[in-house]
């Protein structure tokens, strides 16, 4: 159902009036004179982008792990252990299965006593309670920005927003194929989807390392409201 719009006409009329013209009903997005964003990491190969991402992780207090699909399960297990084990919460996402993580999630963790909650929208608020007490939240990057070290996450009913915010630590799996030079490419991918009539996700998170603040005497504190630690695990899926 469409939402209500109130007071629009007087408000916009006043603006047009101040601008000394009638209201505009058609404006074409201009051809911009400048395009500096196209120059950044212009001809970088996928391997070079991985290197850039790895370097940038040092600036954003994020651990960087690179592995292949065969070894992903071991890597993930190890990072979760390093973070002190469960409770773990993940999205419901078929990519976990594609990356060979089903055995870890369904057999190994239960055996090891690592409590795992997979996001289940039918259980509503219970998901948020689980996320709030979770030690580790695991998500998968949809687009990854090498320059800034950013994972882009699109929300959906199976991909709760709070999985990457409420747990004490965050692990983001980064398919190597998802890495692009910078936010420019992500914005274009999103715009293409919009233009082809797809609805943009109600929440898109561009996440760059753990939460932090320098509000007290400009001293950096890592882990304020969101996760205190973060690891990216890059999977060679190409």
């Amino acid at each position, binding site marked *: 159902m*469409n*939402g*209500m*719009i*109130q*007071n*629009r006409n007087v*408000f916009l009329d*006043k603006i*047009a009036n101040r*601008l000394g013209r009638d*209201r*505009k009903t058609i*404006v074409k*997005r*201009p051809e911009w*004179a*400048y*395009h*500096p*964003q196209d120059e*950044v990491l212009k001809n970088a190969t996928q391997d070079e982008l991985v290197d850039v991402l790895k370097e940038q992780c040092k600036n*954003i207090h994020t651990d960087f792990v690179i592995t292949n699909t065969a070894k992903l399960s071991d890597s993930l297990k190890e990072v979760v252990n390093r973070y002190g084990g469960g409770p773990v919460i993940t999205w419901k996402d078929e990519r976990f299965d594609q990356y060979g993580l089903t055995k870890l999630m369904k057999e190994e963790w239960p055996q090891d006593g690592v409590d795992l909650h997979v996001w289940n*929208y039918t259980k*509503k608020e219970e998901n948020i309670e689980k996320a*709030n007490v979770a030690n580790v939240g695991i998500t998968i990057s949809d687009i990854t920005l090498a*320059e*800034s070290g950013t994972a882009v996450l699109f929300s*959906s*009913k199976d991909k709760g*927003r*709070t999985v990457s*915010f409420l747990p004490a630590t965050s692990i983001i799996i980064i398919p190597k194929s998802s890495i692009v030079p910078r*936010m420019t490419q992500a*914005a*274009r991918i*999103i*715009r293409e989807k*919009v233009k082809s009539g797809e609805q*943009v*996700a*109600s*929440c*898109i*998170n*561009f996440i*760059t*390392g753990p*939460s*932090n*603040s*320098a*509000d*007290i*005497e*400009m001293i950096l504190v890592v*882990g*304020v*409201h*969101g996760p205190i630690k973060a690891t990216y695990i890059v999977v060679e899926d190409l």
Partner: protein
Amino acid sequence: MAMKTSVEKFNDRVDKGLQDSFMRGAVSSAQERFQTRRLGAAEELGNWEEWRSHGEEIRQHVLDNLDYYLFELSENVSKRGGHVYFAQTAEEATSYIQNVVEKKNAKKIVKSKSMVTEEINLNAGLEKLGCEVIETDLGEYILQVGDHEPPSHIVVPALHKNKEQIRDVFKEKQGYKKTEKPEELALHAREKLRQEYLTADVGITGCNFAIAETGSITLVTNEGNADLVAALPKTQITVMGMERLVPTFEEMEVLVSLLTRSAVGQKLTSYITTLTGPKEGGDVDGPEEFHLVIVDNGRSDILGGEFQPILQCIRCAACVNACPVYRHVGGHSYGSIYSGPVGAVLSPLLGGYDDYKELPYASTLCGACTEACPVKIPLHELLHKHRQVIVEKEGRSPVSEKLLMKAFGLGASSPAMYKIGSKMASPVMSPFTNGNKISKGPGPLKAWTEAREFPAPNKERFRDWFKNRPKGGEQS
């Protein structure tokens, strides 16, 4: 807090600022760090001048077509089930929000940082209804717990407080028992605020950039507080200044890149989030109801006139961090939530010359602000224009010599202060200055200064400038 943060006279505010030695030290070291980081980030990015020009062309295009893009934005928010309210005045905005809050029977409201809600004095309006309003940005939370102190910096609101003072605030108000270590203070706030997010009825956020094409809003933080404010309460209200929008995701991206570099020297902050409408069917987290309140509150009067460029502002505070006068007097001296050069231009426009006529004089017109601005607002020219308007159109006498000298703590009565003051104020970047231009700076400055000349903060000391200025007019 309203836009006006103090009923004290300008001179008294400045005096206080000059006497607060911790604050002065904090301000100058913060400025230095911010400057270094910003320049480093700009250099690393490369083509900084082109980036600035691109930022400028985007902002100018949006302002020139503001009615069109606001129409498009509101259509697209509505299509996604969000409500849009256009508020011409602060009162209209506040009463709409009060209405929503009352209908929801809300008791607890969590907020993420928003200058425009300060500007319209929203918290007072909500507290009047008996609501508890909790600021979640760490700096703002500290100020709020400490009896609602005004912010002193756009990006670092509690810059004037040291960690011992913060510890004492938590101790006195919340029974905090740990030390003044920033980690422990932050952990305390984390634990307190986590409970608040989970139990709040309404979340209120600001908006860095709205995106017309998709009806989205963008939030930029390092703490992640805005995300929790938006994800957990059942009702979300976002308040935006009417000029804070862009055509599409592609322009949002450019402005965010400029904002995070200019504000904190980061490529991106930890959390950049675009939210579109309320949650969709099946979503568990996210608000059930979404309201976007678009605020004019004096902005349209700036449009179409000589001060229009100030509406290009993306609130990065780069100009604040570059300003030798801000460094000298501190944020509270401006008596407005908008401090520094941007505040000196904007506050008289939004709040009137009666309250803010001195602010355009709180500048040496050295131009450091203009050079720092990522969207190329000619700040020092706008300050100069203000002075002309004050004298010519408003028919007011120019701010008197005595007042000016006193205003900057440079009065004859405080020669020692004058010395310290001007020493601090003038050579902000002295190691790299050569005459009036910063030429070959080492390290991060080098590559950048090779490509362009960056005017140094005016070497001419304030007093000399003042003496030498043409009588009856201003030197620019």
